[in-house]
């Protein structure tokens, strides 16, 4: 087990390193003057050639690419992700302000995905071919096809504008006003959770069907165990393994969805910051957020992989 964890840890670190290289290269090699990372277009026009030269030297743009990369990376390790041109604050502080909000919504959606998705999948597998199965399967099929931002607008129309049950947009901290916060996040979280619930249900269903055809399940039945025990204790434990592995990828989908949902519901989270930074050409912010999100997903996948090793004894001991 220890070697398994160690191997996975080293692998994750290597991948994070590759991610930093990709992010760095993306921001530097794409068309446009790299000095736009620190200056706006207007500044660029106002400065003379010599001033630009001095600034380039100051920002280290005349050094070879590799040295620029190591400089930037060492800055990142010290917590310095650069400065936002737009807000004139450090990227790190801006991101730290917004991470809790996005995580709040994302984690809730993630949990809902399991809480509703797995039982739905199990029910479908157990009652395969019945009306319940058909209905739930159709719903999950719809669930993975819905454009998440469109669902947001639809829900906003029905629940906020038509029925006036819920506030239209915004986000207040749950520590300030818990009830208002709850009412504000119901719609965004449900929109974010639809795809995870639907895809988890589908995967659970097919995984459970695969497991239930196995011989050891037939043995359990013939031993006379009651249905619930067979399903919960034997089938589900084995069926959960592929679902747990795939759930790590689901987080990436949720974070991607939050980029759109935060735009629809005007929630000041990381997704909205990324969109704004891309539209404002605030490249330092874009770079910082992309790096953080990608690293976060890799770390979550690492945890998932390790727990997968714990769940499946064949990995642990093999």
């Amino acid at each position, binding site marked *: 087990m220890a070697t398994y964890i160690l191997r996975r840890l080293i*692998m994750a670190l*290597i*991948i*994070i390193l*590759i*991610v930093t290289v*990709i992010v760095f290269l*993306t*921001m530097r090699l*794409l*068309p*446009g003057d790299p000095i736009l990372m620190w200056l706006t277009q207007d500044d660029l026009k106002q400065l003379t050639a010599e001033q630009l030269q001095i600034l380039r030297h100051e920002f280290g743009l005349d050094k070879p690419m590799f040295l620029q990369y190591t400089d930037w990376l060492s800055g990142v390790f010290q917590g310095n992700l650069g400065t936002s041109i737009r807000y004139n604050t450090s990227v790190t502080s801006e991101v730290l302000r917004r991470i809790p909000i996005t995580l709040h919504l994302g984690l809730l959606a993630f949990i809902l995905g399991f809480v509703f998705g797995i039982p739905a999948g199990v029910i479908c597998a157990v009652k395969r071919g019945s009306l319940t199965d058909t209905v739930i399967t159709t719903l999950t*099929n*719809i669930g*993975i*096809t*819905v*454009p*998440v*931002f*469109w669902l947001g*607008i*639809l829900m*906003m*129309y029905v629940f906020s*504008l038509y029925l006036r049950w819920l506030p239209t947009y915004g986000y207040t901290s749950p520590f300030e006003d818990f009830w208002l916060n709850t009412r504000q996040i119901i719609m965004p979280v449900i929109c974010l959770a639809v795809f995870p619930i639907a895809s988890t249900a*589908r995967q659970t*269903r*097919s995984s459970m*069907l*695969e497991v239930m055809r196995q011989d050891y399940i037939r043995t359990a039945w013939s031993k006379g165990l009651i249905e619930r025990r067979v399903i919960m204790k034997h089938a589900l434990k084995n069926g959960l393994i592929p679902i747990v592995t795939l759930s790590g*990828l689901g987080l*990436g*989908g949720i*974070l*991607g*969805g939050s*980029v*759109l949902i935060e*735009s*629809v519901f005007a929630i000041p989270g990381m997704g909205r910051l*990324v*969109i704004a930074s*891309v*539209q404002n050409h605030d*490249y330092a912010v*874009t770079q910082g957020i*992309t790096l953080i*999100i*990608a*690293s976060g*997903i*890799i770390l979550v*996948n690492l945890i998932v992989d390790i727990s997968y090793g714990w769940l499946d004894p064949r990995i642990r001991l093999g």
Partner: protein
Amino acid sequence: MAPPGQIEIPPRVSEFWRFYRVFLNRGLVVFGLVVVVAFLLTAAFSPWLAPYDPYEQHLDNLLQPPSWQHWLGTDTLGRDTLSRIIFASRTTLMVGVIALGIAAIVGMIVGLMAGYFGGWVQAVIMRIMDALMAFPMILLALVIAALLGGGLRNVMIAIGIALVPGYARLMCGQALSIKENDYVLAEQSMGASSVRIMLRHVFPNCLPPLIVMITMMMGMAVLAEAGLSYLGIGIEAPAAAWGGMINDGYSRITTNPILSFAPGIAIMLVVFAFNMVGDGLRDALDPRLRGTF
């Protein structure tokens, strides 16, 4: 009944007809196929199908609800919504096809090399793919498209890049298993070059899951394009794109909700159809998977 002592040989069923029988077995798959064909035809014959020119502004008819004249009403500039939805199918199809094409070709080459050569080539390529997969697809496409400068061509490239890892992993896995076959060993011992083996033997056998993946990914590509055009990246006004239309309709949602709803329904139909066709293809091409869905 055969005479005693002789084995009765069942009639030979053509592989072709077996495929069709399984594929068309489920009603939803047939429905999906019909919608996909309708989508393709709509995109191809937009100028003949759309009742009005999508850019034409009927300034006396702004923000009309659905009527007999304009089946889905008009938008803020008086343009017919139905025509815009029909023409937007072209944008979606183009982005989908080209993005998938880029992803499939690049992914296939990369995956084939990784799977066939194995060793450190595989390790390096697969780690890079893992790193690419760590970025949420929308985020990756958003950043690449915006950095390249927006516009439809860059959206296609961006979505294509975002979809590459899926194909690469698939091809790598396929190549790894096919490489073990004896006929590959035979070719190698005859002195065939690696390129020849990869192209003539490994690649054709990898095709079935690849085709399935292409149809499944088409749904994701459509959703990604819709998301990006919703955020205003990719299309240049006054061009029509479903996501962009949803965004335009957002400001008028209290008075003319159909402006946002109709494009969304179009997106859902197309994505659903491609997913169903993908399911049907998967069931028909790989019998082992039948029964698990």
